């Protein structure tokens, strides 16, 4: 498969080679015949070549191209990227520009950018694997003005793009229930659980079913029960990132698969309101619940790199009552 994104900055096109050949032909004809009409054409061809080089250089170098992810980016799934294009030239419209990205079906036409103009283009992109991308495999391509050269300028990434692993669907993990002896101290958050957190005065919006009738009668005003949130035990999902051979494709595939499964488990547990943490060698994400934790866990998984056994630190110790769930 032909790689769409070039790994060069400038290339002479086939048309450009033909142009040079025609210059030679016309030069020979002009010199041999002394026909000044041919000399006129030859001078125009040579001048066209020089002007083309200058305009082409200005056209591509004058445009700054930055890429930024809009929202979460998950590997192999469509994500939105914002491409910010700015023509930094004071004179000269940047034109005939195409935006290249591997995930696009082909070059994307960019309308001409006036001097000093800035424009945002949102493109849908697919990243093939999880990880952190600090350099964009994307850029601007142009054959302007007359197609003698193709010039490419790689886009910059304004902030690193973190590509989350694909969560692999799996069964609900088997987490043992919290027992009275060895549980972690409660955080006593308000919620809809069975345990009563405190008694307090009734305020508008309280559920009437929570009225504490006896106490209300005693106090001669409305008293309600405030309940604690229900919660599971804090669960640490663990992925061992030690690989004997980091160049072994099969081991790497297993490693990536474990990460995907771990992401799937984390999402299921978080959706059930559990406090979920993550551990790997040298990596620890404290257990929490909620949407913020979802991002932290997925980012940790996105950044997880395999390490050699010799460099591998031990797993961070668990606190009393925390449960560790090893994902393999």
């Amino acid at each position: 498969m032909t790689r769409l994104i070039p790994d060069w900055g400038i290339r002479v096109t086939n048309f450009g080679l033909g142009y040079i050949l025609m210059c030679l032909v016309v030069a020979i004809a002009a010199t041999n015949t002394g026909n000044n009409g041919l000399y006129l054409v030859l001078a125009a061809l040579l001048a066209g070549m020089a002007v083309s080089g200058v305009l082409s250089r200005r056209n591509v170098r004058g445009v700054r191209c930055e890429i930024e992810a809009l929202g979460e980016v998950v590997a192999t799934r469509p994500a939105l990227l914002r491409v910010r294009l700015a023509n930094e030239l004071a004179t000269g419209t940047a034109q005939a520009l195409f935006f290249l990205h591997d995930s696009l079906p082909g070059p994307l036409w960019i309308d001409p950018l006036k001097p000093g103009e800035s424009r945002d283009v949102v493109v849908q992109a697919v990243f093939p694997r999880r990880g952190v991308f600090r350099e964009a495999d994307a850029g601007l391509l142009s054959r302007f003005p007359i197609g003698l050269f193709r010039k490419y300028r790689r886009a910059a990434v304004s902030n690193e793009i973190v590509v989350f692993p694909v969560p692999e669907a799996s069964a609900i993990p088997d987490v043992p229930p919290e027992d009275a002896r060895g549980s972690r101290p409660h955080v006593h958050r308000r919620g809809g659980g069975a345990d009563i957190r405190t008694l307090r005065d009734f305020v508008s919006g309280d559920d009437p079913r929570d009225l504490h009738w006896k106490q209300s009668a005693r106090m001669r005003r409305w008293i309600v029960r405030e309940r604690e949130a229900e919660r599971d035990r804090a669960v640490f999902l663990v992925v061992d990132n030690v690989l004997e051979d980091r160049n072994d494709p099969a081991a790497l595939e297993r490693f990536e698969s474990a990460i995907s499964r771990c992401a799937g488990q984390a999402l299921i547990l978080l959706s059930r309101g559990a406090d979920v943490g993550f551990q790997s060698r040298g990596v620890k994400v404290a257990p929490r619940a909620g949407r913020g934790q979802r991002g932290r866990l997925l980012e940790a998984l996105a950044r997880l790199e395999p390490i050699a056994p010799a460099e591998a630190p031990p797993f961070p110790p668990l606190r009393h009552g925390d449960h560790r769930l090893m994902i393999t």
Partner: protein
Amino acid sequence: MPPELRRAYLLVLGPPALIAPLPLFWTHGASPLGIALYEGALMVLFLRARAGRPVRLSDSVLNAIGLSYFFWLAVETAMLRPGLLRSVSHLLLFTTIAKLASLKRPSEARTALLVVFLLVLGSVSSSTHVASLVYCAVMAVLAFRTLSRLAVLADFEEGPPARVLTAVPTAGLSAAALLGGVLLGGPLFFLLPRLHGPYALSPIRTEDAPSTAVTTDRVDLDSFGSAKLSDRVVLRLSVDPPVALPQLLRLREAVFTRYRNGVWTRNPLASRRDRGSFGVQLVTGDSLPSEGRTARLSVDENLFGSGFLFLPYRSTHVRVERGRPVLLPDGAVQVSSSRVTVRYEVSVGKREARGAGESAIDPAQVPPAVRDYASKVTAGLTRPEEIADRIVQHFQKGFVYTLDPPRGSGDPLVGFLLRSKAGHCEYFASATAMMLASRGIRARLVTGSYGGEVGAFSDAIVVRGTNLHAWVEADLDGTGFRVIDPTPPSGIPPATARVSWWKRLVTVGRSIEVFYDRRILGFDAGDQIQLSEAFRDSFGNAARSIKFWKGTGEGGVFPGGAKAVVVVLGLAALALIAFKGITRRPAIPPATRAYLAVRRVLARRVGSVPPAVAPAEVARLLEASAPASVDDARAVVNAYCESVFGGRATDAATARELKERVKRIRKLA
């Protein structure tokens, strides 16, 4: 290729393909029928594409048409014998249409472009008319537009959105590109090496009307009128300094002393006794002597016929560039040159304006009818001045100036005097000269030009056919031949009258025509040498002027040569701005600049300074590396921190101080 993409290619390639072969119509490089068929077919293709229904011929149809054409080509070549250029042109025309009607791949569009380019080559190389410059300009615009759009289409696999083709190229950038092309291509054209003489020359024919009236040994009364109707440029001159212009613009070219039945001829076998003073000297050196000179004329003359030079009265020296000038007894100078144009310089002195030489009309040649007429008009007068005045006055009344005099049988001069009483300057001058001769006054007919048009954008004066004139030289008092112009004022060309804008435009057009004929179509290796010498002289003069200017140091006078340098520098600056562009870079505050300089100094000493190294650390590292610079380094770092993090602007005094500190740090480190 999807139909939308084919449509786009046809829309892009159509306009240049339509224009490309047009000059072949005038140069007979292709048959008019062939060009008409080509244009018609192309219009069909173009209009169908515009309507969104591009034509696409199947391979079988294309093969059938191709075979038919080859059959026709064989017939044409074998039987009609149209010549190589026509055969090739017809083949190119056919190939263009065939390619455009059967686009299957983008590469075929490029092949069609190549064929169109070959048509352009054929058109340009076979055209010698100045209008081909317009064609070149139009094709340059179309070529840039077409190539830009083809470059865009090359990255589309499907039909592009409608806005794409109209968006590229923008008008401003096209103009800049074309200007750059002209600025680069112009000098390139003149610099490219010439190994052969020009293949084609300007289409000036010796049988043209001016050639029968100008610069020849023979001139007849009828042809002179038609020559005056021609607006062909005869010469272009500049006067330095521009003094005494109306007098200087009476340019003497040939002297005639023999008349017979309306035809004047020169006297080529003038005896030594007839020669008298030549009045002018030929100079062979690089420059004209400047002693006693009031003005210097530089003339570019289109040579017609025998190649006589147009010289002003009071000429003292003549220098001809590349040609063999011959000084004739009547003060005329004849040049034999293979070139279309001759360039020469003339020095004008302060002496009296008198015609050179001694030859005059033999009174015995005067027709009896003219003699009788002269006796009748000048009856009772004996003094030559009075006779001349009477004759001139006589022609001002009762005679009509016309460029189309009635023609009758017999001697035209007799017919003019006795019957028609209408004619142009040569009739008036001929009649006056013959009448003076019949009264025993030495007289002769002189042809040349009077007046000219001031160039629209320069001080150059263009003399064309309408400025051709004839007058009389007569020796009235024994001091030499003086000028007598008997033509009524309505028939004398204006000296340097103010010309209308339209006339100026026409003048510009004519100047372009002269330039094209002389400097483009007929440009050769000799011209290149001349051009390089002119450049060398210009820069030498400019350098001398600057030296003089710097030496005197007095304002108010801007030396002429320095103007060239200023203009060149200005153009270079403009070109630099145009090519490099002005990028919007924020101005770096002086404190930051100083801090960055300190970082560079430190990087040179310690190897590298990563971006993460904080300013305080920079100061500390520099202190460790060059202890003597500690105060300066800290001062710079403090100023930088105050400026960047504290928001305090650096004043001018502090900026100067920082600059000094950086200098010291550099020295110490």
